[in-house]
Every structure is written in structure tokens, then in C-alpha cells.
């Protein structure tokens, strides 16, 4: 079970991405972070903390649940349903530069859903995308602006991101996919 990222590596990666965000946006003016539930949320909060340290002021941070925007909701009537959780965007996104944060970029369908969900909250000036891991196999024309690590994978593998706030430790590992619908 290869470990792609340990705690220290993850921390350095997020610090590097925070600097890239500041470089590209020339600071943090009109910037806001939105994490995609579940693991995008703690990652966004950590990025916000680092951005705050570098820029000396707080960057608004929200959480987005995309369950109600999924394109696979109706595909199969059996099996566990995705649990809908709260979306919390306690600021206006109009005219802001939104930095969307997720753990793994795979087919791109989650991000497609997240873009639809975000647009329902207003008209941001721009939307940029941060992912901790890009594992390839895109099914939609979507690409990340900031990537923690590019990892070529097989479809028989899954990439597991574990975040201390949720899973008790920080790591990214590749695991064989569980048997399920191909």
C-alpha cells in the first residue's frame, strides 16, 4: 500500500499551494475559499490559516455539499444513499475570486456539480480549483489550477486521502479498489 504523502509532505504541499494562490492572485484581496464536503473542507480551512499567516488577514472560508447536484443520483435505486450535509457559505460570492478546494480530482464530475452549486449562490469573478491529488481519468473537460501531486493511477486502484480532522491522521495512499460496480 504505497504512501504518496505523509503528514509532513502534506503540510509542505499546502504551504506551497498557498504561496501559489497568493502569487497568482497578487494577494488575497476579494479571495474566498470553498471546500467541497467532506475532505475538501478541512483542507480549505488549513489553506485559509496559511494564507492568513502569509497575508496577515483572514480569508473567508465556506463549505459546499454537492450531493443534490450529483449526476448519478438517479442511476441506481438500491445501495446506500449519499447523506446530504449542510452547505455553509456565510459570505457573498458576487465579484469574488473563489478558490474551490477538493481532495482528489478524478472524473471531474464532483467539480462539475460543485460549479453548478456555486453558481446558484451568485456570480463570482472567477473560480479556481485546488486539489491535493490529481489521479487522472477525467470524463469532463475540467482541470485544476493548483495540484498537490499528480499521481498516475489505474482504474483498479483508489486514492484515499485521510485528514486528521476527520480520519485521525494525515496521509494519502493508493489502495486496491473494493469490489463494486465497475
Amino acid at each position, binding site marked *: 500500500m504505497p504512501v504518496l504523502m505523509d503528514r509532513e509532505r502534506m503540510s509542505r504541499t499546502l504551504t506551497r499551494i498557498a504561496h501559489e494562490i497568493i502569487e497568482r492572485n497578487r494577494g488575497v484581496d476579494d479571495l474566498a475559499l470553498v471546500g467541497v464536503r467532506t475532505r475538501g473542507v478541512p483542507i480549505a480551512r488549513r489553506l485559509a490559516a496559511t494564507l492568513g499567516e502569509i497575508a496577515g488577514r483572514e480569508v473567508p472560508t465556506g463549505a459546499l455539499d454537492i450531493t443534490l447536484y450529483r449526476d448519478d443520483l438517479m442511476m441506481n435505486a438500491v445501495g446506500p444513499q449519499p447523506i446530504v450535509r449542510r452547505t455553509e457559505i456565510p459570505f457573498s460570492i458576487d465579484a469574488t475570486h473563489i478558490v474551490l478546494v477538493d481532495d482528489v480530482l478524478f472524473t471531474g464530475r464532483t467539480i462539475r456539480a460543485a460549479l453548478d452549486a456555486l453558481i446558484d*449562490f451568485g456570480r463570482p469573478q472567477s473560480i479556481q480549483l485546488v486539489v491535493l491529488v490529481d489521479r487522472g481519468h477525467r470524463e469532463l473537460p475540467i482541470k485544476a489550477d493548483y495540484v498537490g501531486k499528480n499521481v498516475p493511477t489505474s482504474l483498479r486502484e483508489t486514492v484515499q486521502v485521510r485528514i486528521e480532522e476527520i480520519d485521525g491522521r494525515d496521509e494519502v495512499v493508493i489502495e486496491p479498489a473494493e469490489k463494486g460496480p465497475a
Partner: protein
Amino acid sequence: MSDAATRLRGKDLLGIADLTAAEITLVLDTAEAMKEIASRPIKKVPALRGKTVVNLFYEPSTRTRTSFEIAEKRLSADTLSIAIASSSVVKGETLVDTALNLEAMAPDIIVLRHGSSGACHLLSRICRAAIVNAGDGMHEHPTQGLLDAFTIRERKGRLAGLKVAIVGDLLHSRVFRSNILLLTKMGADVWGCGPPTLLPPGLEQLGVHPTSRVEEAVRDADVVMMLRIQLERMQGGFFPSLREYFNVFGMTPERVALAKPDAIIMHPGPMNRGVEIASEVADGPGSVILDQVANGVAVRMAVLFLLAGGGEHVAAA
């Protein structure tokens, strides 16, 4: 996953009786996420896009029907509401025939309000569509029970251990039945209070404390829920007069003062001011009556989504 539910087991929502405590918690948790949608500039999500929902209301209803319609529209379902007065029911069509005809047009969900207890169970057996009970006779009104529980949990943070006093016409009330089934399942201490003629027998077996002394029911209560005196059902001489009813059972500020200082006052509506509840109480600081209405939309969105919107959760991101 421990014993947390991730889906409803049944195809329908016929009553609280069929739900487990874990399923009730799932509906309430999902409703919390749905409630946020009402605060967005665009109050609509695509979760039930392409699903058809028929609202079939055999009894007059403003609040419940409007609430279901708004919930359906916010989930992007295609909806139509059939008002019985202008339908073929007035030409003598039976409920079963109406349902079979609707079923032939392949709706995904039928929301049914009917004057006969068990009407939803009947439809459930003959329809592929999911049936949502919006009130059947004197049996159940499950979405009202769920929205009441949601409102209590929102204010009190929990249901278990709370003293809930339900005062009014308990005999004819489907709201009462759904509420006691739900609240006892969730571990609340439920008191039922009304004139002896309006107290159904067997409440103790359901885990409810029956009383005809409103002061006893309300004392130290966390929640005081008033039920409507159904004026249309009061031909049977259940009590001498409306004025007497108000004197003995009406919720006045003096009686509310017996409850806990932070007690909340609930009423499923429509209210008879001056019969079961004084205006000072209905409009008072502890009143959450309009919260109940707002929460009704969120809870119905949760129920509709859980019945029709579920698909397999693809683990990959």
C-alpha cells in the same frame, strides 16, 4: 457505520409507525441541509430533476399542500396538484380508479391527503410510485410529526428526555398520533391532555401519560403543543361550549408560566385563537408556530429526496 441509517427502508412514507429511530434521525439530519437552501438567492437544487410528483388532496388544505408544492419545486421535480372539487372524483370515480389512472401516467411520487384512515396504505399496495401520506383520516400525518420534531430539536438540541405536553382534541388528531409515535421512539416524556371525552383509550400502552388537568401536563414542560379543536367534528357534544373549553384547557399566559421558562409553544395550524390558544401565547416570545411552517418545507424536501432521489453513492471523488 454503526446503527446510523443511510436510507429509508420502505418505498413509501405511510406513517411514523414504520420508521426506526435511526431513520427519523436521518430525515431530520437531511432536513437540516435542506433548510439552508431557503436562504440562498436561488432557492432551487436539481436533485429531483425529471421526477414527477402528483399532489392528490381529497381534503381542503392550504398549509400542507403549499408546503409540499414548494418543497417539490425547490428540488426541481415536475409537480401537479389535483384539487378534488374540479376532478373526476365529483363524477363518482373511486380512489383506487383515480390512483390507477394516475399510475398509468408513471408519476414517481404521489402525495395523498384523504379523509379515510388507511387510504395511503391502500394506494401503496396498488401503485409503483412512492406514496407520501399527507394526512389520512384520524390515522397519521407523518410529515407534520417530523417537522414538529425538527423544530423541537432545532430549539432544544435534542428530543430525548424532554417533557412534551400535547393539549387538545387527541381523539380525532392524526397529528397527535404521529407525534406520540415519533416522540416516544426518540425518548421524550410525552403527556397527552384533553377533556375525558377527547382522550383516546390506551395511551399508557403507547408510553404517553394521559391527564385531563392541563396544569399537570404543562408543569415543567419543555414543549407545549396545542392541537386544534376541530370545529367540524364537534357535533358530538364532547364538551359543553367553546368558551368553557377555553376556560378549562385554553393555553393562557398563566398556564404557560407553569412550564419551564424557556419552553416553546407549538401549534400545527390552523389556529382557533381564543379556543385552544390565547393570542398572547400564539404571538408570544416562546411561540415557534411560524418556525414550524418554515421547517415544514425543509422536512418535506428531505422526505421526497430520501424516497426518490437516492442512488448509489459512488465512492470515488
